[in-house]
């Protein structure tokens, strides 16, 4: 984790901070969702508790803490309590691998009478060489939370809800994996950093041997528009968000797999769901919106700009990293607002319509997108206009 104590402690603190940021994001996102849905349905939403209802977050958290803790008598006690924890772990693991911003380069400095060598801190919990496949593996573990919850509470309806939710998650995971293959084809690497670096500057490609430059930013969405659409639909279904949240639909299955859960256990399920949403929006912005990058400007000019202002190199690199972090959070916030906007404006799918969409439209479409991209690149190379 690091050559000496200083770097290891900083890495562990960074790890803890990113995990706590995900946990802390849940009340904020619940508040944004309630205010947003109120805005869409032309009503007020929570505004009693504190200014603009902001203290509502604290009120909810305290309410969840002091709720009565009980479990139905026929439930398998161990599995019943294991399910909420199993719903939280995959989101935390997946969020750890996303690169949040440019790395911070710390110049050697004097402290406590010792000279500490130069360090480079990655702005992510850990840097794994095969980033994409790891994040897909972590998000494929989300099924366990559902299955254990459905089975643990030994209630017919929650078992049915759990089975339907896991079948839906599995079918859409296939098209998610296939749509990601499209972007890997274009960028040619499984590592997040190379993909973000490849999406800098203006959109440029060879056409009939001459270099064409278009005003658009060099983002993945312009190379793979079809894959972007498939990714969005699959990610909506993957985190059980409307219009794909039939397993939890009040009308059909009471509350699906978390019928028997209340109080803090339900909050853990919410944390898992919102964590999954944050990871999904982070992935979308990395694959299709250029990650933490500025649209038309590449990172070198920005770092030079900031190192011009701040004399000390460490502060300059910290400021650039914070600048890019804010940019990345804006992109994630936009996509999370898309999650919520769709939730409060689209009706819910019927179950067979929902599964047919997954198997009979999204998967063939994603396979077609891969074949299309491969043949365009093949033709482009073959007659000398390479992408």
């Amino acid at each position, binding site marked *: 984790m690091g050559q000496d104590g200083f770097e290891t402690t900083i890495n562990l603190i960074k*790890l803890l901070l990113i995990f706590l940021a995900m946990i802390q994001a849940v009340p904020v996102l619940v508040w944004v969702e309630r205010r947003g849905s109120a805005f869409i349905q032309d009503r007020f939403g929570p505004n009693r508790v504190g200014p603009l209802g902001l203290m509502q977050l604290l009120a909810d958290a305290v309410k969840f803490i002091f709720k009565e803790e009980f479990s139905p*008598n026929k439930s398998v006690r161990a599995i019943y309590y294991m399910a909420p*924890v199993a719903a939280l772990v995959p989101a935390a*693991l997946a969020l750890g691998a996303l690169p949040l911003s440019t790395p911070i380069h710390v110049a050697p400095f004097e402290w406590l009478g010792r000279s500490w060598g130069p360090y480079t801190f990655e702005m992510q919990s*850990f840097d794994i060489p095969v980033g994409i496949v790891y994040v897909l593996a972590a998000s494929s573990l989300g099924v366990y939370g559902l299955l254990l919850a459905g089975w643990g509470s030994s209630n017919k309806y929650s078992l049915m809800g759990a089975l339907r939710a896991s079948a839906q998650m599995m079918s859409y995971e*296939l098209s998610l*994996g296939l749509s990601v293959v499209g972007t890997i084809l274009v960028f040619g690497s499984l590592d997040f950093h190379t993909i973000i670096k490849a999406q800098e500057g203006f959109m440029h490609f060879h056409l009939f041997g001459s270099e064409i430059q278009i005003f658009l930013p060099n983002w993945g969405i312009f190379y793979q528009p079809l894959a972007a659409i498939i990714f969005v639909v699959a990610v909506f279904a993957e985190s059980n968000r409307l219009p794909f949240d039939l397993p939890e639909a009040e009308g059909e299955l009471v509350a699906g797999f978390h019928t028997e859960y209340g109080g*803090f256990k339900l909050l853990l399920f919410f944390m898992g769901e919102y964590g999954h949403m944050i990871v999904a929006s982070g992935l979308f912005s990395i694959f299709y919106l250029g990650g933490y990058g500025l649209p038309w400007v590449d990172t070198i000019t920005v770092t030079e700009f900031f190192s011009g202002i701040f004399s000390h190199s460490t502060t300059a690199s910290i400021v650039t990293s914070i600048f890019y972090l804010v940019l990345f959070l804006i992109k994630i916030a936009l996509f999370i607002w898309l999650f919520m906007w769709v939730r409060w404006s689209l009706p819910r799918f019927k179950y067979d319509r929902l*599964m*047919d969409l997954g198997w009979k439209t999204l998967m063939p479409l994603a396979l077609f997108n891969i074949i299309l991209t491969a043949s365009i690149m093949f033709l482009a190379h073959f007659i000398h206009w390479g992408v």
Partner: protein
Amino acid sequence: MVPLIAIMVITVLATLFGAALLFFVSKVGPKVKISEIKSLSYECGLVGEEKKSTKVSVKFYLVAILFILFDIEIIFLYPWAIIYNDMLTTNAVFIFSEMMVFMAVLLFGLFYVWRSGALRWD
């Protein structure tokens, strides 16, 4: 070496966070009054009769089986996708045709699943 320790630390952190707070909440919350009615499983208020295990739900295992099989085919797409761009310069026809055969077999499998009615969700 570094990612493995970090992954283990995050898993332990997440499970500890969930379990510790669950335990803390059960200690802090009001005393649990176990009453026969309350601990019945939730049947929208009616007292549910205990039916034999639901036979209708057995259909879902076929989705899981098809998921495994198509998932393996996606796993084989990743290595090909990584080197496609580089291998285009060396032997383009070779790498392109190789994957088209693989995709044809995969598409035939999907088409068979579609036609055989395994994807009918009643």
